[in-house]
């Protein structure tokens, strides 16, 4: 069951990753812009079971690690995304107030992005990744969070319907 679901979802993950690298990264957005693959995989995880979310997080993290702009070792994003996707999946399935409405979704996704970026910085510091000065890092962190807050409500209906269409379920949003 999981194997069938993940093989269906894999091309979507790859498609979003290519869109991120070929289109989103073309724009030099102020404050660091947003990561569509990050937003997508977290929304997808909230809508999925924890096991499927972990697998999705593994795929998304591995793709992010393979990105040429990733400065950390391969596996760092993979590890963080498994943890983040599992966590949001548990939270999403456990609380109707969080996952059942667009505001809850946006709040959960944006909070997860903020926390996963902090986790990236922390693990990066432990693994010897140079991330720059405090002010610039803070600006990028806040920038990514604000951009995610703006973009998530826009892409949420698309990703939610895509998830429902892929797994033949009824869209929650």
């Amino acid at each position: 069951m999981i194997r069938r679901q993940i093989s269906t979802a894999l091309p979507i993950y790859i498609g979003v990753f290519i869109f991120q690298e070929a289109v989103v990264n073309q724009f030099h957005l102020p404050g660091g812009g947003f990561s569509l693959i990050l937003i997508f995989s977290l929304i997808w995880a909230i809508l999925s079971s924890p096991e499927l979310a972990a697998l999705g997080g593994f795929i998304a993290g591995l793709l992010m690690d393979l990105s040429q702009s990733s400065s950390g070792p391969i596996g760092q994003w993979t590890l963080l995304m498994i943890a983040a996707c599992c966590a949001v999946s548990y939270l999403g399935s456990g609380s109707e107030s969080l996952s059942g409405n667009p505001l809850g979704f946006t709040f959960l996704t944006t909070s997860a992005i903020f926390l996963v970026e902090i986790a990236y910085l922390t693990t990066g510091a432990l693994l010897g990744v140079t991330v720059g000065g405090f002010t610039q890092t803070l600006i990028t962190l806040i920038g990514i969070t604000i951009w995610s807050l703006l973009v998530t409500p826009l892409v949420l209906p698309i990703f939610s319907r895509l998830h429902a269409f892929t797994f033949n379920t009824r869209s929650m949003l």
Partner: protein
Amino acid sequence: MRRSAQGRGRLLIIILIVTALFLITLDLRGVGVLEGARQASQTILSPFQRAGTVVLSPIKNLISDITRLGRTRSQIEKLRADNAKLKAELLNRKDADAQLDQLKSVLDLAGTAGFKVINARVISQGSSQSFSQTITVDIGSNAGIKKNMTVLSKFGIAGVVKDVYSNSALISLATDPSFRIGVRIAGSQQIGILSGRGNRSANLQLIDNLTTVQVGDILLSRGSISNRPFVPGVPVGYITAVDNSPGAIAQSATVYLYTDFSALSVVAVVLGAPANNPGDVLVPLKPQPTPIPTVTIYVTPSPTPTN
């Protein structure tokens, strides 16, 4: 039955986490297979990035114009009247002209120093999700690009080649926090190490604490052995502030980088440099102040008084 499914789920998550940790360990130990995977992914992505650049150029120009509107409002007001009749033509040629201008300037810079360069178009800005500052260009090992080659903009140092793929290359910009370059001050020849800070201002650490630097001093690249990663004599930036803290082991300063990293569309990768160091030949000229004309009025008193 349900407990068994839960157990399988937990086992799957554990396997995934162990795999991720395994990957980190392999990468930190420098296993070549993983670096090959990253290279392969870039080789697959570069045609998409190229297509994206072509398709999105007009939209990028529009967004760039909108974001700069506030800063250049007074200038836009002044030029609006002149631009009206040329607007249609300008829209079509704007992108090409900007690239041509950058290309001409970068070739002038390289030609003055005698550098052998190859030009490249920027096809992607690196995502800042990993807090790094990179760009991807449309040429790679097939065009003779190698790792650790100097990358120039029309103003001076833009960065260094970090990774090379068959038809594209990843450039670490001078603003990248991991970027380090040996520099010397034009004229006084004091040397120091400049490091990126994530934005256009960089940090300079001087080697000798006894000499002094001044605001406005121009920094040039010091050069490396066999000209890699850096060729000598390329303008890097100028000093905007000096930190003279008493008791500091080394003198430090803040440097404003010459290159405008937000508007990079064409760069040049230095393939070779002449045996002679170009010295200070590439130091940018200081802008000459325009003299303000003075008006002298002579008044001759009339011989008869007026009522």
